[in-house]
């Protein structure tokens, strides 16, 4: 008797999540998330489009040559890639030692520091850039690479500190101690034990930082435009001045590095490395 009710309840609990309702939810989510991307993506190869047809009037690769042949757009691509790489590098140099310290040392102000890093996230980005811009005017950093780089690095500090900190903290002490007992120096322990084990977390942080920099539009636009244009800031002008299809081509180009990194780091990001980093300990 109890077995039957148990099973009945179990299936009742499962039932609430099966059947046509969850199927509908699934389809709606697919349309909601992928629909806009597909709809825009098709445009990159479309001749023209008549409402309310669900497909374009014809296919062409003309828009690709427009984008690839445009010099300013090409420079934006270069700027974006160079800035993102530089940002990750600078951010790693500044933040990774701190991440290690947060994970392994107890020191005066540790908790305040962690919360202080978070405060950076709480101030609205646009408001922050406006306040930074008024400082940059005074320091003559408006429209300079240095100014834009500072803005980009600021956007990565939280990722580069929190996620690797969680990764360093997750390396078992016992392993490090065992290596020490076997006669390894502190440096050797770090290089051979701690760092490799924390590497997935560091990689996720690097990927997130790269994307954050690659994606950064508001601050770059405010500080860098019109002298330093990256791909996202170029999008602002593109969508206003060019036909829709050019923006679509540009969007695909802009999404390529992101998708490549997605495929590379997907396992670790979904595996909880990212989520783990966002809990102050």
């Amino acid at each position, binding site marked *: 008797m109890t077995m039957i009710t*148990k099973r009945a*309840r179990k299936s009742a*609990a499962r039932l609430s*999540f099966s059947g046509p309702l969850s199927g509908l*939810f*699934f389809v709606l*989510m697919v349309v909601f*998330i*992928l*629909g*806009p*991307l597909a*709809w*825009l993506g098709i445009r990159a190869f479309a001749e023209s489009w008549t409402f*309310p047809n*669900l497909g374009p009037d014809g296919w062409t690769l003309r828009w690709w040559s427009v984008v690839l042949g445009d010099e300013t757009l090409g420079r934006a691509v270069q700027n974006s890639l160079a800035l993102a790489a530089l940002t990750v590098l600078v951010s790693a140099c*500044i933040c990774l*030692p*701190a991440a290690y*310290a947060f*994970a*392994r*040392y*107890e020191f005066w102000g540790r908790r305040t520091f962690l919360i*202080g*890093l*978070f*405060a950076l*996230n*709480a*101030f*609205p*980005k*646009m*408001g*922050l850039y*406006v*306040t*930074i811009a*008024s400082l940059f005017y*005074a320091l003559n950093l408006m429209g300079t690479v240095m100014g834009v780089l*500072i803005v980009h690095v600021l956007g990565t*500090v939280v990722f*580069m*500190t929190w996620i690797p900190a969680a990764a360093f903290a997750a*390396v*078992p002490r016992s392993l490090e101690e065992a290596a020490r007992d076997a006669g390894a120096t502190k440096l050797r322990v770090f290089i051979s034990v701690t760092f490799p084990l924390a590497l997935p977390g560091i990689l996720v942080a690097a990927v997130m930082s790269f*994307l954050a920099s690659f*994606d950064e*539009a508001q601050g770059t636009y405010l500080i860098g435009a019109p002298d330093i244009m990256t*791909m*996202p800031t170029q999008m602002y002008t593109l*969508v206003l001045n060019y036909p*829709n299809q050019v923006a679509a081509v540009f969007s695909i180009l802009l999404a390529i590095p*992101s998708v490549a990194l997605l495929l590379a780091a997907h396992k670790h990001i979904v595996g*909880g490395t*990212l*989520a783990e980093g966002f*809990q102050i*300990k």
Partner: protein
Amino acid sequence: MTLAPTRGSKRRAIATPAVARRPLGFFLALPPIILILLFVGFPIVLAFAFSIGLTGGLNHVIASIGLNVHEAENWWGTPAAYIEVLSNSRILRDLSVTVGVTALSTVIVIFLALGIGLFLKLRDGRMARLLSGLAIIPLFIPVVIASWAIVTFYSGDGFVRSVFAQFGVEAPVWAFTMVAVVIGSVWTSLPFAVLMITSGLQAIPNAMIEAARDAGAGFLRIVVSILIPMAFVPILIAVTFTAIGVVGSFTVPYFTGPNAPNMLGVSMSNYFSAFNQPQQSVVMAFIVFVIASGIAAAYVWANFRSAKDQGKV
């Protein structure tokens, strides 16, 4: 009992730090802190001084470039700029739109993320895993593209209207309305909330759910009494980050929203660049900051509580 689930070993590793090497840790942690103090803390202080009319020193340049700057006659400043902004009915409308969009988007995001997380936890299977993978995709799409894609999808000649037109139905145009702003905010905020909430839910031992089922708990009871309380901290983190992200957003409302009223992030930028009224812009930044700080306080409290539950504070 610990409310925050699992990974005890990792936490314990931090709970027993090497106290002996105190100064080294402090100095290693210093560089990002200095960077933030210099380029976030300092500008914020400076901007606050500017917002209350203290236009000397480093604020001199911006005060002389900007129009309509309220200057203080004394050392402690003047609330004139705040009074002007807060009595401007257009900006007040922007403010209420900002709060409304933030609240609505956050509720929808958390609802969807919880749905996906519970789906994955209680049912698993291919569809659930596909769904959670799908929800991560926006994380990798630059917000500029996402906004533009959403505008074209819901525009007058967009997909939604085209599909409805096949059946002779006139669907509403959502592009350049607040509906599109909410859609865009949900779209871009979903991945982080899903990651946070699924990892929180996955950490809850299945044995607990089984035990509750054996004791006669139904689906709703299990969700409300076990899963949500046990994943409370990750859920709250998802709520705060979503709300803070939306309240200060610029790109999504700029691309997908109407000219006016729009969210404060857009008005802020307009006042700074187009209208050249930096002081008003900075005042708006502080208004949004106050809202975001309120949300952030909840996050800090939640983390503190989870640390306390584990007996660390």
